[in-house]
C-alpha cells in the first residue's frame, strides 16, 4: 500500500469511527446515561481489535454499523409496523448484504422469520403483505449483487482456504468467547422484542465468525467487532435503575476483554 493510499485508508477509518462513535454516544445519552459514562461505553464498544488491523478495520466497522442498524430498526419495527420502520429495516438488511453478502442474506432470511410472532398483522394475507414490503429492498439488493457477481465478477466473500480440525476447535471457542457476556445479559433480560432481535443478530455474527475463520481463513476479530455495538444497543434498552450503570460497565468491559483475548489467542492461526 502506498503512502497516499495508507493515508486515505486511515482518514476513512477515522471518519467512520468518529461518526459511528457519535451515533452510539447519542443513543446512550438518549437512554439517560450520563455524559462520561456514555462516552466510556462508546469507547469500550469501539476499542475492538479488528479496528486496529488495517486490513480488516473498514469492513469490520461497516459490519458493526450494519449490525447496529439492523438491531435498532428491528426493535422499532416490531414495536410498530409503520412504513418508515419498514423502509429502515428493509434498508438495513439490504445494507448488510452489501457489506457482507452471505451474512446479510442470512440475516435477511432468519431475522424476519424469527420475528414473525411479534408482527401484528391480523390475517395471513396481511402478514404476506407485510413481509413482501419488508423484504422488497433486500430482495432487490440480492438480485443486484447476483447480477454484479455474475456479469461484473464482483465477489463479496474471499474464500482463502481451510484450517485443520485442531485449529477448528480453537476457532469455534474463540468465536463464541466475545459474545458470551452478551448472551448472558440477553438470557437474563426479559424476552422482549429488542432482546430477541439482538439474540438473533449475535447468533448470526458468531456463526459467521466461526464459518469465516474456519473455512475462509478470515481474521476472527472481524465480525466480533460488531458485538460491541450490539452491546451498546442492549444497554440502551435497559430500564433506569440503581445497578444499571454498573451492570452495563461489567458487560461492556467483559465483552471487550474477551474480544481481545480471542483475537490474541487466534492471531497466529489467522495469519497461517
Amino acid at each position: 500500500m502506498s503512502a497516499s493510499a495508507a493515508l486515505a485508508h486511515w482518514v476513512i477509518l477515522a471518519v467512520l469511527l468518529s461518526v459511528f462513535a457519535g451515533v452510539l454516544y447519542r443513543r446512550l445519552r438518549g437512554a439517560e446515561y450520563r455524559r462520561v459514562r456514555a462516552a466510556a461505553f462508546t469507547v469500550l464498544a469501539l476499542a475492538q481489535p479488528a479496528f486496529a488491523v488495517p486490513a480488516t478495520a473498514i469492513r469490520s466497522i461497516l459490519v458493526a454499523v450494519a449490525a447496529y442498524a439492523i438491531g435498532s430498526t428491528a426493535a422499532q419495527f416490531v414495536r410498530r409496523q409503520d412504513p418508515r420502520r419498514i423502509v429502515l429495516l428493509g434498508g438495513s438488511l439490504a445494507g448488510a448484504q452489501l457489506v457482507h453478502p452471505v451474512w446479510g442474506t442470512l440475516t435477511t432470511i432468519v431475522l424476519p422469520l424469527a420475528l414473525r410472532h411479534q408482527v401484528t398483522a391480523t390475517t395471513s394475507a396481511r402478514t404476506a403483505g407485510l413481509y413482501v414490503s419488508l423484504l422488497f429492498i433486500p430482495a432487490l439488493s440480492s438480485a443486484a449483487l447476483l447480477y454484479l457477481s455474475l456479469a461484473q465478477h464482483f465477489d463479496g466473500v474471499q474464500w482463502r482456504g481451510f484450517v485443520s480440525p485442531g485449529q477448528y476447535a480453537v476457532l469455534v471457542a474463540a468465536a463464541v468467547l466475545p459474545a458470551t457476556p452478551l448472551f448472558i445479559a440477553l438470557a437474563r433480560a426479559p424476552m422482549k422484542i429488542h432482546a430477541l432481535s439482538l439474540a438473533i443478530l449475535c447468533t448470526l455474527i458468531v456463526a459467521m465468525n466461526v464459518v469465516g475463520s474456519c473455512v475462509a481463513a478470515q481474521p476472527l476479530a472481524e465480525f466480533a467487532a460488531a458485538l460491541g455495538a450490539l452491546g451498546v444497543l442492549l444497554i440502551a434498552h435497559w430500564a433506569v435503575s440503581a445497578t444499571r450503570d454498573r451492570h452495563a460497565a461489567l458487560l461492556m468491559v467483559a465483552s471487550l476483554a474477551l474480544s481481545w483475548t480471542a483475537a490474541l489467542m487466534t492471531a497466529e492461526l489467522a495469519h497461517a
Partner: protein
Amino acid sequence: MGEVSILREASARPRARGAPECAAGATDAVALRLHSKLGAAAKSLLLSGSHSFGAIETLRSAAIDDATHALQRHEPQYSAARTVTPAQRTLFVAVGLGLTVCVAISPAVGGLVLTAFIAASYAANAVFRAWLFWVGSDEPSTQIDASEENASAADLPVYTVLVPLYREANVVAQLAAALRRLDYPPHLLDVKLVVEEDDDDTVAAALEASADGVFEVVAVPAGEPRTKPRACNYALQLARGDFLVIFDAEDRPEPDQLKKALHAFRRAPVNVACLQARLNFFNARECWLTRMFALDYALWFDFLLPGLDRLGIPMPLGGTSNHFRVEALRAIRGWDPFNVTEDADLGIRLARLGLRVRTLDSTTYEEATNALDNWLRQRTRWLKGYMQTWLVHMRDPRQLLRNAGLGGFLGFQLFVGGTVVAALLNPILWLVFVLSFFIDVPAVGFTGATHALSGSGLLLGNALFAYLAMLGPYRRGWLDLSPYALLVPFYWLLISAAAYRAAWQLARKPWYWEKTVHGLTRMADGAVP
C-alpha cells in the same frame, strides 16, 4: 331578496322541457319588484314549473355566463380556454427541432444524451415521490377529540354540499343515503344536487331523492363546455353556507367529515382556504384493476399529498371531498370550466394567490372503476387535465416562481409536470431498453451505454414506484393489497397508454369531458373496509 336569491329559488326547480319560453318584456327589475311587493305569492309564481319569466331566464343566462366565462374574462392567464400560448408553441417546436437535429447529426451522442435525460427525468420523478412519501409518512394525526367537537357544535355554520351529477340516475339513491348519514344538523345543511337541465333521468332521480326537501336540485342550463366545474360554478352562486364541500355521485364520506373539516378550519390560519380529505375505494378488492387503483389512491392521498402539505408545495386537489371557505372560493372565481381537472388547477391557483390547501384526516370512499375502458377514459381525462394545468401555470414561469417560491415551483414541475412526463417517458424507456439490448448500432443511437442508462432509469424508477405503492396501504391497514404492488410496472404501462391518449385528445378536444360511468361495481353498497 337579491338577484342571486331569486335565481336560487328559480333554479331549485328545473324548467320542464318544452315549457313555454320567456314572457315577453319581463325584466330583472320586474321580477325583483314582483317579489318585493308580493313576497311569497311572487315566489310561488316564480317557482311555477309551467311558467318561465324572461327576468329569470336573464338571470340564469347571466349566471351561467358568469359560471362559464368569469375566469376567462377577468383572469385569462389562469384559464385553460386557450390550451397553448404562441410562445409555448414556439418553444415546443424549437425544442423538438433541436433534439431532432442533435440526434440526426450524431446519433450515438445524441441518443445517449437524450436517453440519459429521459432516464434521469423518470428517476427524478420517482425519487421526488419517495421523498414526499417519507415526509408524508410522518404526518401527525389531525383526529379531533369528542370534547372539542361538542364544544364547537353549538355554533355550527351553514355548510353547503355540492354534488354535481351527470347521467348518474342509477347512483342517486345510494348518494342520498350517504348524504343522509352525514353527522351535521339537517337544518344547517345546504345540500345541492347539481344536474344538467337536459339530463332527464338524473333530474327525475334527483327530484325524487329530494322529495322530502332535504336536498335542493339545481338545474344547470345546457351549454358548452359541459363540464363539472361549469356546473359547480353555477351552483356556487347559490351556495348559502360559509363552508362548502364537493362530493361526487358515488361518494361515501365518513359521517363526521364536515365537523372534522370545520374544526380543522377553525384551528387553521385564515389563509387556509381549502382542505382535501382522503379518498379511497369501498370496492378496492373487487378485481385486479380496483386493487391497483386503490394502491394508487392510498399512496397519493395518504402519503404524497400530506407530504406536499408539510413541505408547503402547491397541492393539486383531488376531484372530490374538497372543503372550502366559500368566501375565498368566490374571490378566486371558482373553478376553471375549461380545465378537465379543475380541482388540480384550483389547488395550484390557490397557492399562487397566497392561500393554502391542507389535508384532512377523514376518508371519502368512492367506487373504483372495474372496467378497463372506463378506467382508461377516467385516467385520460386526469392526465389531460394535468397537461392543461401545467401549460396554464407555465405560461409565465417567472411569475409562477415569484408566486410559489423556488420549492413550490420545483415541486409543481415534479409533481404535476412529472406525473405526465413519467407516464409519457415510461414506454419510451422500455422501448430503448429492449431495442438497445438487441441492436448495438451507434449509427441509430443504440449502444451498450443507452441500454445501461435506460435499464438503470427503469430499474430505479419502477422499483421505487412499486415500493411506494407497496407501502401506500399501511395507513389504513390494507396490507393484503401490498403484494399487488409488484405488478405496478404493468399498471404503469396502462397509465402510459392513457397519457398518450390524453396528449392526442388535448390537441384535438381539450375541453372534452370524458364521462366515467359509475354504479358498475358488484360489491354491496357501503361495503367500506
